[in-house]
């Protein structure tokens, strides 16, 4: 099901009813496949659809006159790209696939209909929007104020928790289908420096890499090293559930 990861993500915040889930599934009108590095939508295009990542990794990016394409967000399964994009006449940034991707298209009218029919979904999708903003704030803070080794550690912690929230991690590891260029781009450092930081974290025993798989050897230690506080991911429902499990 194309919306399973989105439902799993939203249910970190609020329990959806079967009717909510049906509305979400019905809003998907088409599914498209994109190759690695293929654009999903360009800056300047009129956004006719909201894009939902079903499989693979995508990114928001801006194109600069010098050819640079800084990445502004990673989008993983369950992430909606700008649910309120219907309010805009044109895209002010682009989306591209970072790995082979399956993307569901939700037309703007289908989103409007869905939101009118369920207050719970409206609240849940606002939560998802606020989460996107919180992640962007954290990236801004991290890029400007943390050394590169902490930036890398921070990003790995974040992506592990985000992948875990949609059931895509295994034993504190996850598939990271990025080049060192792309990873460095997000952290605002060169690929040479990214390579050195990966080697440093490996040397400290904090991570292991197995091909494209990132393994976190000790999440608590990596979080401490990177000064990572997961509060900005707002995984409230999950935390509450965990607290209940721990208390019982």
């Amino acid at each position, binding site marked *: 099901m194309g919306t399973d990861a989105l439902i799993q993500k939203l249910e970190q915040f609020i329990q959806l009813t079967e009717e909510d889930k049906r509305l979400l599934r019905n809003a998907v009108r088409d599914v498209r496949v994109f190759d690695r590095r293929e654009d999903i939508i360009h800056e300047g295009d009129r956004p006719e659809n909201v894009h939902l990542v079903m499989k693979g990794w995508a990114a928001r990016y801006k194109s600069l006159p010098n050819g640079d394409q800084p990445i502004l967000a990673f989008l993983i399964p369950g992430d909606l790209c700008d649910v309120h994009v219907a309010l805009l006449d044109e895209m002010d940034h682009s989306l591209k696939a970072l790995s082979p991707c399956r993307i569901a298209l939700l037309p703007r009218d289908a989103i409007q209909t869905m939101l009118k029919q369920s207050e719970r979904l409206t609240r849940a999708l606002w939560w998802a929007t606020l989460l996107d903003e919180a992640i962007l704030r954290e990236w801004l803070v991290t890029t400007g104020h943390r*050394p*590169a*080794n902490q930036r890398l550690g921070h990003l790995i912690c974040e992506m592990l928790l985000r992948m875990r929230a949609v059931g895509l991690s295994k034993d504190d590891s996850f598939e990271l289908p990025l080049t*060192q260029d792309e990873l460095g781009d997000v952290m605002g*450092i*060169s*690929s*040479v*420096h990214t*390579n*050195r930081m990966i*080697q*440093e974290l490996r040397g400290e025993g904090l991570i292991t890499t197995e091909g494209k798989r990132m393994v976190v050897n000790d999440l608590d230690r990596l979080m401490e090293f990177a000064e990572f506080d997961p509060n900005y991911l707002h995984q409230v429902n999950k935390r509450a559930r965990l607290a209940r499990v721990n208390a019982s």
Partner: protein
Amino acid sequence: MPRYLFTVQNSKPAPDTTGLDLAGPEEARSMAMTEAGEMLRDHRDSDWPTPEWWVLVTDEQGSTVCRITVSGTGGTV
């Protein structure tokens, strides 16, 4: 594309075991400059002055492409 190795000598010596595929020596030199800047920025709060640091770029045959050396001297205040 040719591969270049970026070896850094500072308080945490780091031989490059993987290298990076780049268009040519010009790009490798540009990367070395960036790396030297990033290295300094990451260590701005470290004890200072420190011994001399350098970034050495070699090609796969071991020939030097460039070496950027950073050194500083403390003043009297």
